[in-house]
């Protein structure tokens, strides 16, 4: 099922087990924050890991998902799950035109175009009246799931976020291991050859881009509901940089890498928060250690050492 081989199936079961016990050991809001970051990194990994395109503007889609979910939740009082999915719709809707422009180039040019477009989105968010500018959209209610489960309870919210994360995670896995995913990987390895085999590579890249931005929007929507706030931090380019760091640290092009990377980065931010600016310094140091000592990332390195396909 979901195109998992034996190692990955064991890994996924382990992940599900961890998801179930985590809120009883750790602070649930922290785990929810981690899961949102992990889903965001997984979505980003779909582009960098499997299509080989480094998007430097993924915060735009994450942040827009945040804003739209927060706004619809606050003003329309819709179902919590619907609001999260609205975040995904917003991410995809924004990803379609921006992706259509960006995929015309690859490598550093693709990265720069996505960064430039994301900065435009950032300035739109600063000025647009519905985002609340520097204040953000505050006091977003968590609302109810299916009309009767009150999500103000942290545990109820946790199960919703865990379910959304798991669905997104398995969906990405399914995409990557489908025939469509095989084409994506072939584009990553050798694009002219994929073209010569008759694939319209631009269409494939665009679909992958939109899927990735949609899931980034879902992650953003979930985050907005967990914290009850959507702010400029979520669309800022530092968030784009952080997701690159997360994915590299965990392992590019691995299924579990982004999740492990998110666990490391979010814990680091959380436990080092009291040292203020030192968080960024530590992140930089960790990034250098990763690039110098284990370039395949944590999961990539373990997988290579144990000859597993994680």
């Amino acid at each position, binding site marked *: 099922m979901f195109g998992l081989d034996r190692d990955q199936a064991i890994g996924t079961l382990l992940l599900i087990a961890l998801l179930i016990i985590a809120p009883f050991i750790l602070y649930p809001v922290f785990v929810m924050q981690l899961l949102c970051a992990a889903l965001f990194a997984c979505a980003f990994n779909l582009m960098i890991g499997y299509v080989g395109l480094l998007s430097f503007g993924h915060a735009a889609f994450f942040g827009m998902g945040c804003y739209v979910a927060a706004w619809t939740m606050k003003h329309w009082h819709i179902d919590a799950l619907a609001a999260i999915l609205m975040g995904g719709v917003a991410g995809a809707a924004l990803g379609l035109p921006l992706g259509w422009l960006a995929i015309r180039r690859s490598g550093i040019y693709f990265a720069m175009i996505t960064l430039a477009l994301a900065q435009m989105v950032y300035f739109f968010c600063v000025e647009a009246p519905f985002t609340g500018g520097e204040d953000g959209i*505050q*006091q977003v209610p968590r609302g109810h799931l299916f009309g009767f489960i009150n999500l103000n309870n942290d545990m109820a919210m946790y199960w919703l976020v865990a379910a959304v994360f798991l669905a997104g995670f398995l969906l990405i896995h399914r995409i990557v291991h489908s025939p469509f995913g095989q084409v994506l990987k072939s584009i990553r390895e050798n694009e002219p050859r994929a073209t010569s085999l008759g694939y319209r590579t631009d269409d494939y890249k665009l679909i992958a881009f939109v899927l990735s931005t949609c899931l980034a929007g879902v992650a953003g929507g979930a985050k907005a509901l967990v914290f009850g706030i959507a702010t400029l931090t979520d669309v800022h380019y530092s968030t784009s940089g952080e997701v690159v760091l997360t994915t590299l640290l965990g392992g590019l092009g691995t299924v579990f890498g982004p999740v492990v990377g998110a666990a490391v980065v979010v814990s680091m931010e959380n436990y080092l928060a009291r040292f203020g600016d030192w968080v960024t310094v530590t992140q930089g140091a960790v990034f250098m250690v990763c690039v110098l000592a284990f370039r395949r990332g944590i999961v990539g390195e373990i997988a290579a050492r144990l000859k597993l396909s994680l």
Partner: protein
Amino acid sequence: MTISRRSLLGSAAAAGFGATLPMALPLRRARAAAKPVIKIGVLNDMSGPYQNTGGQTSVICTRQAVEEFNAQGFDVQVISADHQNKPDLAVSITRQWFDRDGVDLLLDVPTSSVALAVQPVVKEKNKVYINSGAASAELTGTACSPNFIHWTYDTYMLARSTGGAMVEAGGDTWYFLTADYAFGKQLQSDTTALIKKAHGKVLGSSPYPFPGTTDFSSFLVQAQSSGAKVLGLANAGNDTVNSIKQAQEFGVTKSMKLAALLMFITDVHALGLKTAQGLNLTESYYWDLNDRTRAFTKRVLPKTPKNMPNMDHAGCYSGALHYLKTVQAMGAAAAKADGRATIARMKAMEVDDDCFGKTTIREDGRHLTPAYLFQVKTPAESKGPWDYYKLVKSTPPDQAYRPLADGHCPFVKA
């Protein structure tokens, strides 16, 4: 360059272990105590534009209150964090403090956008929230909460005192330089209301992104070309300091009068008397007001020699002290259990401390302090370090703040 992977990982692990060890120790100490523990969390800007107006000195003044109170029957702990002026970060820290660290009192919280963002969290968790650092009068207006007291000052009081003085002195046309978030917008609109009432005019405004703006030159040029008599600075902290410095460099001060609508003594110190002399500003506390404020300053200044406590810091001291007195009166267990009841009790009790004297707290959570209009001394008038202010006018507490009925606080009617 080659670094052996093993040595690199080894040293990283050692560093990580070394870092976690001291963190684990205070936890164990806390567990050993049997008495109930009241935890005070001071949340403010420790590294950004408001680090001098709030920052570490707020924590020191809070600790001073704890020390002086010398609680019997319960222990008091003070913890602090840097919210970096980000509402989302503040919300997540606050949730964590209440859920995991057992914080009972949230204190200081400058930056109005942040102050407003944490308001519903405190209400949801039924804790106590005393705000000293933020200005927005919305906090006791439509965004008011039964778990909240606004301690030190607000935008309405600043607009009335400083803005009113400027209008009286003939400044009837204004241009605003505004920090573009909840605080700046509120301060601008409160001052605008006052100018319009006096038949003055606002000729324009330049909202600028906060935080992160350090170059105000283009806004200042716009202000100058507007032809207004008064440049209203609806900003605070380092932003005010930078905009005043640059206004002087660009010669704006020759054609316009500056109205620093929110300025602290720490900002005057950063500017220096030569630059700041003659400015009008409003604070609800000044160290050299009377014998009691001088006594407080004498006690606390050795602990923070480089940063004279301003009204924000004094508010942290005064608020924490009144809270602890209330906890003593109610019993620590009852105070921990119900934040709303604690706030109600705090409103019922008279406030009396060295910083603000005898004061009261209004139904909507507004702590009624006097408002003092000061003028910054010239270098010749100043007799010593931190001798910066001349008292021009003092507004009594019952007139300094927005009347209760005009705030439209939802729970007051009920």
